[in-house]
């Protein structure tokens, strides 16, 4: 059992659940109180001590039965109900049959016959050997869903089909020898049950083997840091999932940092009026000092390019916008390709995944129709009320304008009106100004400009913007 629990914890870790040593110790201690007999209580004690995140619950529920499922029952000895005479007859028949067919016997037929008719389960060694032959130790054998397939392969190697024929012959011979038909029926039934149980044992063993492979595999997998440095466009689907988690974590950090800033904001100038009033009860001796609370209510306007060239990174920026909007009360979010759309409500009313989809379907990507300049003009014409001296304007885009008018004057006017004008560009600086990129014309008009093509840079930029 100990071994099982250790393996289970390793599997949880391999699936990305963080389990510390202290937590696994708690689990052991919990088990000493509730034991392992009561399956439900056992599950609860593991879950309460190992899982600290609602998101990790499904992983736990998924893995638990795989590790603590009902272990398959051992094989039975079909001869137990026979008289001594009958047992001897059976042994003799088996012996004779084996001798008769010695040259035909293939694979491990003899072993199989032993297991089925004598009720011994295969030893760990036997299992390992079969697993090895069935290819369970090969590097591509990882998916636990394929356990059945490997189990069947192991059966084949044992000569399962041939065994069925052999058994039929055995029954006939026993009948010829005059064994009691009831006894034959009994052995037959029990051997059939043994075959079922052996089948279960094999598939369970295969499943375990595959899961072990998977755990080892995950331990070899590359750490997250690597992902932080990779560009958004080059990620595979599971990596995207991982990155989404990272974005979520980033947002959580933003939140704490914002709270800290507000706290620091409190330690500002002495508030003489409030201090006097608060200390009246101490006859004016200033025991309680009050400070002016700087009520910083920042405003944010984000303009996001979701054109074809930006599509790979648009999703992450959208997620980031979503979290920012959560953070900064007065946020207006706009997205554009050839015209500007106000997507504030989309981000406000949907859950995060739906919101991303909603925005991306509202602005389907086309070919060479980006109009950044035009979109900026629309921003000035329709939504200029959103920009004032408290507003930080963030543009997320590559500055590729499809040779349209960049509307630099408009951009400059917006920038002067705002507190800050920040640009996040996913392209390498070397590419700025090449082809249809107007980045170099926009650059001098921005208060801050960052290259953001991976999460590390994004984190960095956000940090600097917020501090």
């Amino acid at each position, binding site marked *: 059992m100990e071994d099982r629990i250790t393996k289970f914890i390793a599997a949880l870790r391999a699936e990305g659940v963080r389990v510390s040593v202290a937590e696994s110790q708690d689990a052991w201690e*919990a088990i000493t109180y509730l034991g392992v007999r009561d399956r439900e209580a056992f599950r609860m004690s593991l879950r*309460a001590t190992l899982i600290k995140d609602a998101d990790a619950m499904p992983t736990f529920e998924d893995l638990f039965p795989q590790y603590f499922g009902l272990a398959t029952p051992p094989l039975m000895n079909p001869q137990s109900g026979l008289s001594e005479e009958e047992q001897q007859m059976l042994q003799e028949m088996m012996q004779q049959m084996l001798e008769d067919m010695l040259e035909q016997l293939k694979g491990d037929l003899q072993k199989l016959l032993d297991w089925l008719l004598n009720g011994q389960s295969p030893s760990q060694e036997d299992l390992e050997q079969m697993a090895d032959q069935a290819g369970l130790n090969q590097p591509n054998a990882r998916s636990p869903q394929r356990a059945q397939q490997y189990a069947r392969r192991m059966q084949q190697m044992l000569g399962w089909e041939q065994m069925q024929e052999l058994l039929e012959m055995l029954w006939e011979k026993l009948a010829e020898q005059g064994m009691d038909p009831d006894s034959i029926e009994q052995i037959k039934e029990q051997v059939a049950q043994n075959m079922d149980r052996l089948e279960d044992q094999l598939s369970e063993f295969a499943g375990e083997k595959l899961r072990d492979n998977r755990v080892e595999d995950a331990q070899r997998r590359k750490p997250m840091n690597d992902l932080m440095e990779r560009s958004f466009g080059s990620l595979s689907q599971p990596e995207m999932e991982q990155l989404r988690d990272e974005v*979520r974590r980033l947002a959580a950090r933003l939140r704490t940092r914002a709270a800290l800033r507000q706290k620091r904001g409190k330690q500002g100038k002495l508030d003489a009026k409030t201090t006097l009033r608060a200390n009246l009860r101490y006859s004016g001796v200033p025991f309680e000092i009050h400070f002016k609370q700087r009520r910083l209510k920042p405003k944010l306007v984000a303009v996001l390019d979701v054109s074809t060239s930006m599509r790979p990174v648009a999703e992450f920026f959208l997620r980031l916008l979503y979290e920012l909007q959560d953070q900064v009360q007065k946020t207006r979010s706009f997205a554009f390709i050839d015209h500007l759309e106000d997507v504030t409500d989309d981000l406000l009313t949907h859950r995060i995944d739906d919101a991303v989809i909603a925005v991306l379907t509202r602005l389907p990507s086309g070919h060479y129709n980006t109009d950044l300049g035009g979109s900026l003009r629309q921003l000035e014409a329709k939504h200029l009320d959103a920009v004032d001296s408290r507003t930080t304007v963030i543009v997320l885009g590559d500055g590729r304008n499809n040779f349209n008018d960049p509307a630099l004057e408009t951009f400059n006017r917006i920038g002067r009106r705002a507190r800050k004008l920040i640009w996040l560009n996913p392209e390498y600086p070397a590419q700025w100004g090449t082809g249809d990129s107007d980045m170099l014309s926009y650059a001098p008009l921005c208060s801050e400009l960052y290259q953001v093509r991976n999460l590390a840079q994004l984190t960095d930029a956000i940090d600097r913007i917020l501090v």
Partner: protein
Amino acid sequence: MFNSVEDVKRALADCQYIATNEIATVLYLAEKLGKPLLAEGPAGVGKTELSKAWAAATSRELVRLQCYEGLDESKALYEWEYAKQMLYTQLLRDKLSSLLADATSLTDAADRLGAEEDVFFSERFLLPRPLLRAIQSEKTTVLLIDEIDRADAEFEAFLLEVLSDFQVSIPELGTIVAKHRPVVFLTSNNTRELSEALKRRCLYLYIGYPSAEEELEIVRLRVPDLAPQLARQAVEMVQTLRQLDLKKNPSVSETLDWARALVTLNARTLDNETLENTLTVLLKYEADVERARRALRRQGGNGHGRSYN
């Protein structure tokens, strides 16, 4: 004092709290392992209620610390009671002047005053806030740290120290160690991700929405005046609403509010009019109310909703 999960369950039931096996098991473990219990889940499913029920079931005092943004040590742990110190100084003025009367020099006077400082920085003038109260208590208390996710990360870090050692140091007094470790409940609505360090120190319990039967049992227990048939309909309705992808799902406490409202209104059946009038007890956003109405009308259209008439 509790020897099995069943005991825990029974004790909670005596205090009108219907605990699932899961809740009872984790609570039992928290008690046995002496670890804080972190309860997460949507608002209004009975996280806070659980700690209250547990305090009642074990006849311990409940000490509650409500967290909010900007909560700091002086609000959570202790504060010097300036006003009382001032008052005492005033009252003891005569005593002080007689004490200082024959001082020969300023230094001498200051020394004498310094020697008496302990009087003013003693527990007499210490105003214990919830954490210190729980630690100082003569009996084991139930300490509820409510909505920890609302406090900032700084406070969370400060809490770690208290939670792992159950002692606090007050510079003027020294270290105060808990005589009886309190049983700690933390609740979180998951508005902010809690630190790994905090989670590591706690047992974790996720309380989700109850199943229809569980919820019905809760309604029957808490609002016994509601007719059984109506209670069943009401619970079914709430469970349906939770499927609708609303901005804010109706919680158990809202189900109870609604049940009480139905009793007050003397409702016999859950007809459309009653529903229209009381839907806002359950739903807190205009958009949600609209969405629920639309969904109910759709159901009414295919004859399903007629049963409410």
